[in-house]
C-alpha cells in the first residue's frame, strides 16, 4: 500500500489480495476487486481522526478564533470536526482556548477527567500554553500543562484560524502514529484521574500538600515572618553538591563513550 506500482490502483488491489486467496477464505469473484487490505492500526486511526469531535468549550479571547475556525470561512467540517459537543463524555478533543484562571482550573480538570479516552488536549494560544500576556497576574495559571497533559501547543495571541488548523493536523499526525497494541486505554490497568486542584487561600494541587506544608509550617514560615512583603520568598531550588557531582560523572561517562577508541 505504501508505493504505487505500475499498473495503477486496480493492479495493486489484485496483487495484494493474492496472498489471502487461499482455501479457508473464499472471496467471491465479483468482490475481489473491491477488497482492500490494510492494517488494523491504519483503519482504526483513520476513522478516529476523521471524526474527532471537539468539546464545545471556550475560555477567553482565543475561543472567538476557535469559533471563526469552525465557521464557514475556515470550515472545520472538512476534517470531520464540525460536531462540537457540549458534553465531555461525547468529545475526543479539548481545546483549552484562552486564559486559565485559578478559579477555572478545578472545572477544567474535572471536565478533562470526564472525557472518555482516547482524549486529546490542544492548548490554544499563549495563555493556555504559558500564561501569555497575563502570566504575572495573581489569579492566572501559567499554562494548563501545570495541571493536565497537553498534546499540542498552538502559539499565538490569538492563533489565527490557519494556525489552529495546522495544530489540528498535528493532532491527526499524532493519532496516526499510535498503535492499538500499545495505546493506554486498552491496557488492563485503569488510567489515573488527575487530582482536582483545590481553591484555598491560593490554589493548591493535592499532590503537593506535603511540599506546601513544609514551607508554610516549617522553615518557610520562619522566613516569611521576617519578610515584610507578607508573601513567601524562597531561594531558588538549586542542585546540591551531591547532585552536581553525579551530573559531572554522567557527563564524563558520556564523553568517554563518544571518544573514538
Amino acid at each position: 500500500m505504501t508505493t504505487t506500482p505500475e499498473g495503477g490502483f486496480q493492479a495493486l488491489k489484485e496483487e495484494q489480495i493474492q496472498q489471502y486467496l487461499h482455501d479457508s477464505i473464499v472471496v467471491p469473484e465479483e468482490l475481489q476487486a473491491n477488497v482492500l487490505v490494510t492494517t488494523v492500526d491504519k483503519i482504526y486511526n483513520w476513522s478516529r481522526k476523521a471524526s474527532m469531535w471537539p468539546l464545545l468549550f471556550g475560555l477567553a479571547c482565543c475561543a472567538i478564533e476557535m469559533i471563526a475556525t469552525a465557521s464557514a470561512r475556515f470550515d472545520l467540517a472538512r476534517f470531520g470536526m464540525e460536531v462540537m459537543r457540549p458534553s465531555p463524555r461525547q468529545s475526543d478533543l479539548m481545546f483549552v482556548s484562552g486564559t486559565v484562571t485559578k478559579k477555572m482550573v478545578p472545572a477544567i480538570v474535572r471536565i478533562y477527567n470526564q472525557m472518555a479516552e482516547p482524549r486529546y488536549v490542544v492548548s490554544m494560544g499563549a495563555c493556555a500554553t504559558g500564561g501569555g500576556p497575563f502570566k504575572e497576574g495573581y489569579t492566572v495559571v501559567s499554562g494548563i500543562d501545570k495541571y493536565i497533559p497537553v498534546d499540542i501547543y498552538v502559539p499565538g495571541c490569538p492563533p489565527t484560524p490557519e494556525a489552529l488548523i495546522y495544530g489540528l493536523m498535528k493532532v491527526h499526525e499524532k493519532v496516526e502514529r499510535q498503535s492499538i497494541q500499545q495505546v493506554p486505554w486498552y491496557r488492563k490497568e485503569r488510567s489515573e484521574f488527575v487530582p482536582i486542584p483545590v481553591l484555598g487561600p491560593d490554589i493548591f494541587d493535592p499532590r503537593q500538600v506535603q511540599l506546601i506544608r513544609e514551607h508554610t509550617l516549617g522553615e518557610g514560615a520562619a522566613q516569611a515572618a521576617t519578610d515584610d512583603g507578607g508573601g513567601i520568598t524562597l531561594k531558588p531550588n538549586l542542585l546540591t553538591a551531591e547532585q552536581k557531582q553525579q551530573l559531572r560523572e554522567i557527563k564524563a561517562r558520556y564523553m568517554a563513550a563518544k571518544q573514538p577508541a
Partner: protein
Amino acid sequence: MSDEATMVAEEAPAVEHSLNDAVPGAIIGEWAEETEKALFVAPDKLLPLLRHLKENEAYDYLSSLTCTDYLSYGGKKRGGISERFDVVYHLFSTANKGGSLNLHVRVPEGDTVDSATSIYPGANLQESEVYDLYGIHFAGHPNLRRVLTWDGFHGHPMRKDWKEAYFEEDAKPFRSRHPKGGYQWQEDKLPWGKNATYPPEWDPETWEKPISYVPVSQAPHHKPGDIDTDSLVINFGPHHPSTHGVFRMLTRVEGETIIALEPEMGYLHRNHEKIGERNTWLMNMPFTDRLDYINSMSNNWAYALAVEKLAGIEVPERAEYIRVIMAEFSRTLNHMWGIGFILNDLGALQTPAQYAIEEREMILDLFEEVSGARLMCNYMRFGGVVRDLTPGWVERARYLANERLPRALDMLDRLLSDNEIVRGRGYGVGYLPPEDLIALSISGPMLRAAGIKYDVRKAEPYGIYDRFEFDIPTLSDGDIYARYYIRLLEAREAVRILQQALRDIPGGEVQGAPAYASATLDQGFGTIMGGKGGYTLRPPEGEVYHRVEAPKGELGFYLVSDGKANPFRYHVRSPSFINLNGLGPMSVGYKVADAVVILGAIDIVLGEVDR
C-alpha cells in the same frame, strides 16, 4: 486645556455651596485640577448627598464606582486629605446630558462606607468588586461577597501592599529584563513550581473550604397561595455553552419558573487592573484589546481618549476619521455577532450565526491589513493611530460600507425579524421598566431598547461624532425582541456613519508630518514611530474619567496619574460587568430557557466582565 481649567474654577465654588446648602457639611473639600474636578464628601453625609443629587438634581445614573489605594502615592497629597482609601463615584444625568459629577470619599483602612445600593441599586456589583479587591466594607450592602476572586482567597489583591506570587518590582520595565534580558520566574524559585503563595502557618491538610453563601437560597420557597412545591437550585456553568464563556448562573426554580437568579463571575479574572498599574501607559494598550475581545478597536479608542485627555494630546484630523471608521466597523460586527448569538441562544443553533458573521470576516480582513492582527488590533496610540491606512483600503471599506453591509443587514432583517419563533420567544420576555434600568446603571443598547434615548456619542460627544448625521434609534418595549431589533437598527446607523466618514476622510500629509499621528508627540516624549527623546509618556498629575459608547454600552476608563511613567490607578468601567446587575431582576418570573436568552441579549463578553 486651559479653557477647561478656567471653566472649572468658575463653576466649582457654586456647586460646593449649593450642595452644602442642601446637605449641610457634605462637601469637605474640593480638588480642581486641569483635567477633572472632584468633590470630597464627608463619609457620614454620603447617603443624604446622593439622595439629594438623585432626587433634586437629576443625577440619576451612577456610572462608575471604584476605589484607589493611596498608600504609595508619589505625587502631592490631594486635597489635603490623607486617608488611605479613596472611593470614587461618577454620577451622570440621563436627562440633562453633559459631564459627570465626581465624588470622592476618603476612608482610613478598616473603616466602612455606607452602601449606595439603597439609592443606586446599580452599585451592587461595583461595591462587591471594591470589597473584593480593596477590602472596604459597605454597610447596608445586601450581598457583599467576593465576586472576582473566590471565598477564602487570601487578602485583597488591589491594595498597593499586596504582592502576588510573580511580584518582581512595582513598575515596568523590570530591571531584571533590561538591559541584560534576564528574567526571574517564580516557577523556578518555588518548590511547587506554580504561581501561588500561601500564608504562613496555613495547613493545607486541615484546611476546609468556607461554605459559600449562595444568595439564591434566600429566595422564598413558594409564593403564598401556590401549591406547595419544592424549589430547586439549578447551576449553569461555568462550562456551559450558552453562557458565552466561563460564567455561572445560580438559579432557584420552581417548576420551570425562576424565582431567584444570581450571577457568579471571576472565572476569567485576569487582573487587568493590577497589571495595568505596573505597566507603562502605552503598555496597557494591547491589554485593552483583550477586554472586550470582539471590539478591540473600540477599547483602544476609549483608552487612548482617556490618556489624551489626561496628557492634553491633540489628534490630527485624519486620525480622528480613521478612529471613527474603526469604531463603527467594530460596532457593526459586534451587533451582527450579537444577533447571531441571540439566535443561537434561542435554539437556532449556528445557522443564523453563520450568516451573521459572514461580513465579519471581511471587516477583520480590513483590520488585519492595517494593524496586522485580526482580533487584537492594538491599533491606536495616544495622539493617533499606529500606522496609516494601506493603499486601496478606503476603496475596499467603501465597498463594504456602501454595498455589502447594508445588504447583509437587510438580509438578516428579512430572515429573522418576522420569524415566528423570534417573535414568540422575544415579545414581553425579560422586561424591566426604564427607570429600573437606569437605576441599575445599565447602559448601551439595553437602555435604548427600553425607550431611553441615551447615547454617549450624543450626550457627551467625543472624537468627531458631532460632525456626522446619525440618529439614536429607540424602541419602547424593553424586551428580548426589542433588544434584538435595536442592534439591527444601531448597526444600520453605524453603517450610515461609516458611509459619511469614508466619504469625507481627508488624505495625504499635513505639512510633512504624518497625518495619522499627532505631531505634539514629538515634543513631549518622542514619536511612537521612533523619534528622539524618551519613549515613555508621563502625563501630569491628575485623574480622569473618560467614557465612550462602546458597542456593549458605556465603556469608561478611570485613570489616576502621579506624574510617573506608570498609571497609579487604572480602572475599567466595563459595560458587560455592570449590565449584569440587571440579569437577576430581569430573569425572575421567566422560564429557565428564557434566562439563557436574557443573558444572550445583554450581550456580555467575559473578558470585560471579569477583566
